[in-house]
């Protein structure tokens, strides 16, 4: 099988021409660097994304706190992770890197704070 992809690993955005079968990549053309090949394999067999969103925060000078998944998670779960985060409220102070939801939706990946906020 053949598929055209655009590598999202860096701003070059190489157009990749990927040839693959049911379980493996046979050939990748158009990648300017080795990371493009890894991207093609991942994108075809189990696409993943880092998810970034916000949760509510109380007792701080700001009302919403930015959060992110510590690593990339299966692409299809992004929407559910954002929905799960929208139900959460945390209390200040919070440090960047603090775990907000451990093992979010059973992905094995933590949702962590991406900003430090002091108490008001």
């Amino acid at each position, binding site marked *: 099988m053949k598929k055209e*992809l*655009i*590598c*999202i*690993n*860096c*701003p*070059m*955005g190489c*157009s990749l021409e990927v040839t693959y079968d049911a379980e493996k990549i046979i050939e990748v053309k158009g990648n*300017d660097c080795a990371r493009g090949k890894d991207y093609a394999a991942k994108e075809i067999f189990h696409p993943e*994304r*880092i*998810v*970034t*969103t*916000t949760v*509510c925060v109380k007792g701080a*000078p*700001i*009302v*919403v706190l*930015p959060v*992110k998944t510590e690593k990339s998670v299966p*692409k299809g779960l*992004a*929407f559910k992770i*954002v*929905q799960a985060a*929208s139900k959460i409220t945390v209390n200040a102070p919070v440090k*960047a890197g603090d775990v907000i939801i451990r093992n979010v939706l059973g992905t094995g990946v933590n949702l962590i704070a*991406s*900003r*430090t906020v002091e108490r008001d």
Partner: protein
Amino acid sequence: MKLNFDALIIGAGPAGLGAALSLKENGIDDILIVDREDSPGGILLQCIHNGFGLHRFKEELTGPEYAERDINLVRERNIDILLNTCALDIISEENHKTVVLLSEDKGLLRAKAKVVILAMGCRERNRGNIAIPGARPAGILTAGFAQKMMNMLGHPPGNEIVILGSGDIGLIMARRLSWEGARVKAVIEAQAYPGGLNRNIVQCLHDFDIPLYLSHTISNILGAKRIESVEVAPLDHGVPAKPEGRFSLACDTLLLSVGLIPENELSLKAGVILDPATRGAVVDANLMTSVEGIFACGNVLQVHDLADNVSEEAACCGKSAARYLVGERVKKREIPLKTGNLVRYVLPACAEVGKEVIVSFRPISPAQNVTLVIKTDTEELLRKKERKIFPSIMHRINLKQIPENAAYLEVSFVSEEK
């Protein structure tokens, strides 16, 4: 409060923070940074998506994380930041500048500084700048303002969204709103190619099956109190199609992502000359503007796509400002930098012979299989194959030494056949 400084920096985004760190590293301690917001970090604080710092930290950070690294360094080095303070005017006096500041706590202040660094960032083009016909209902806002509403205030702007312009901010917002459960109906782009990066087209539009209409525009806005729909027209050589070729999209929100303009009102007041191509200051190789003692870096100088490049430019700016402060002001012969084939602009405006210079430039339009050529009137300094170039990707090249005999420097992209 002390009102006399070696260096006063206006703006505490990555440009201002980076310039301060570099001044300090180069021996200048007497620094004040001012920012009109209530926390340092600039626009990065609302850019909660990842994609920052790949070059500088070899890590993929979110905007707030990237900002926090610089903020922590500035705090560790005891550099003062005065927040909730807006710079209103810069007046050149004999041996210093007077910067008029309006501070929430301290009222009107007149601070003196030997050098001023402009790091005010940019603002978004709005409907006034692009003149879309139709009604003036509520629900029309810039993509960056929508980003601030959502990511800093927790208010989604609407449920059914159309985005005009395919700049990166609009694309990032398309994903953000889709994840939040809003329906992004389309992105409309007047150019024949996307304004934003390919990677954002994939992860922000393709992932959500959001159509991108290239060579299309919005020819009318309908709605009484709140926007109800937009009329979309294909463009033929820039001219909108006849009414029968147009179609309508229902929506309650229209986001404008039609470009950024350096925030230079203050610079103009200070007498700084602007470049019509970048809308930022005309600077020499030391990033000093046309007004002696006033430097500029970051988005106020030229709109950058990567915060990493902003930090790099800020570091150069801080270093030259530090040299200027210790009295290294003698310049070697200066030569102009010119734009050649396919190059929209080159920054800085001039370079000194025998010295190093970092040149930034962008292509006018996308192209494939071209060769980047940087040459003087007598010799070629650099020749490099480029498989693909895009206006959305800035090039930055460090030239170690400009030949002593050069009369000018020219940057161009030439097609390979030639």
